[in-house]
């Protein structure tokens, strides 16, 4: 069917312009509804946000907004609270991404064996993934309550690791323990399913031959499974890193938006506070663009690394 549009003799140009217009007209019926929603509520806002970030935005009367050039960006980079939020977000990412991958791949290896009840385990492990963030966050908050929480009781009375209750939620460092653990706990099921799909694509013959040749399970994992799993691992790392940088709800609810003393913010909780509590829209937009730029860079790396494997 594409053959007609390839008829490019000069004499046909008039006809083919008419043709392509008619084609556009016919396609419009399919394209316009979706693109209208997409343009109004995603693409348009994305562009609009760039504009806002260059202004001291006046929410009451936008026409009276002061242009400040890169002022909001400069302010963010100099702001110790923002820097702290960046560090917190990076630490969260550096802890939860390897955590999810190590545990998830281990789970996938277990699930990839010929065992009964595989479907059951798979479903069960997926439960945290589909549970809304708000619910699991509150659940972790409750388990980590200082007085009478499940975790303190386990550590103190059952395992005897601590002498007295730890006030997890009131300390600017310890409060990240439940946040990080939640990030891993909630994401592992997804990581495992993706890794399992990758493992199932590895030809069993290869592993059998190696094992006949006397390769130990560890050697087989290191020299066969791991290299063949590499594309999947790259994909996992990139998606999880983006997810980690965008972490938001668990921090917002557990630290109550950066408490104590604005020391526990993530980038996005800070953005939220700047925008909707202090009504500093320009500053919030600048922060979100800084984050987006970073995420975009990670995405570009992803596409580069995966280009050979995936046709877009």
């Amino acid at each position: 069917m594409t053959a007609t549009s390839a008829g490019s003799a000069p004499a046909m140009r008039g006809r083919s312009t008419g043709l392509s217009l008619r084609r556009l007209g016919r396609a419009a019926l399919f394209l316009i509804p979706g693109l209208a929603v997409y343009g109004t509520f995603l693409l348009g806002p994305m562009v609009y946000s760039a504009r806002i970030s260059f202004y001291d935005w006046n929410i009451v009367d936008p026409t009276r907004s002061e242009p400040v050039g890169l002022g909001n960006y400069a302010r963010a980079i100099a702001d110790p609270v923002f820097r702290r939020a960046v560090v917190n977000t990076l630490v969260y990412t550096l802890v939860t991404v390897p955590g999810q991958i190590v545990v998830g791949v281990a789970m996938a290896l277990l699930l990839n064996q010929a065992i009964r009840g595989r479907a059951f385990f798979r479903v069960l492990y997926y439960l945290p993934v589909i549970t809304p963030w708000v619910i699991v966050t509150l659940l972790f908050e409750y388990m980590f309550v200082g007085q009478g929480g499940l975790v303190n009781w386990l550590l103190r009375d059952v395992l005897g690791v601590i002498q007295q209750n730890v006030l997890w939620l009131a300390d600017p460092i310890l409060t990240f323990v439940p946040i990080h653990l939640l990030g891993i706990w909630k994401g592992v099921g997804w990581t495992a399913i993706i890794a399992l799909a990758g493992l199932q694509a590895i030809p069993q013959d290869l592993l059998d031959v190696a094992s006949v040749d006397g390769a130990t399970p560890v050697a087989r994992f290191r020299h066969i499974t791991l290299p063949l799993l590499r594309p999947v691992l790259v994909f996992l790392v990139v998606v999880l890193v983006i997810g980690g940088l965008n972490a938001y709800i668990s921090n917002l609810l557990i630290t109550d938006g950066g408490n104590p003393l604005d020391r526990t913010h993530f980038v996005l909780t800070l953005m939220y506070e700047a925008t909707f509590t202090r009504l500093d829209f320009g500053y919030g937009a600048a922060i979100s663009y800084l984050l987006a730029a970073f995420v975009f860079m990670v995405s570009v790396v992803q596409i580069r690394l995966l280009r050979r494997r995936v046709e877009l």
Partner: protein
Amino acid sequence: MNSSIQSNRRRGKAFTYLLLVLGCGFVVVPFWFMIATSLKPQAYIFDIPPKLIPEEVTTANYTEALGKDLFGIYFLNSMMVALSAVALTLFLSSLLAYAFARLEFPAKEQIFYVLLLGMMVPPVMLIIPQFLVAKNLKLLDSLVGLIVVYVAMNVSMQTFLLRGFFEGIPRELEEAALIDGASRWKIMWRIVLPLSRPGLAVVAIFTFLYAWDEFPWAHVAIRETTKRTLPIGIALFQSQHLTQWGQVFAASIFALIPVVVVFAIFQRYFVRGISTTGLKG
């Protein structure tokens, strides 16, 4: 010799099961604890040692949370928003995906890439301008404002996914219908969509879970109490009743039921959807 290999293997298998069951423990204990807590009277909430099996079982938390707060209304709001978002996303993404899979038109590639941009944008970054757009369009404090944004956030990914499905359908089927004089529109509805049920199921499931879970946008866009969705209702309820964990979890379990039902029904599509597309639930 042979028997030692066999016993080795048996030991290996036992070890596998041990680890898998241990993993289950980590997953199940928090959920179990949530259910147990929702059934405890308030006086036992911070009992030491914490009881995984309530000494005294009560349904008071459920009746109280559902009666005192507006969780019934939040539930209906969430359901309405999620189902509408699913229906609209299915409709709009199918149209787009069909155009990109089968129609020829100018600037097709370019338009497709612009659409794919939506897969890369961190969602929370859009909240500020979306807030301003919604304000101008008088869509704040309205469920419609939630629905359109959820659709916009999903349409890129789902179009991408459906285009793949549509391309997998043999062209011959459509060409025969074209020769018989059927329009593209009719072909999409009569031939392509019925053959793409698994793909449509994946789109529906993920859009539903997304809308059911979504917190940041609803948190910003909704101020009026009666328009809240469940995540907002639960989070705000907890911040107002700090220690009423029994009621918080009663409401949470209430909110979790549709998720588990959807998951149980569509489990096989689910796993296939995740492992073939890498969608994140």
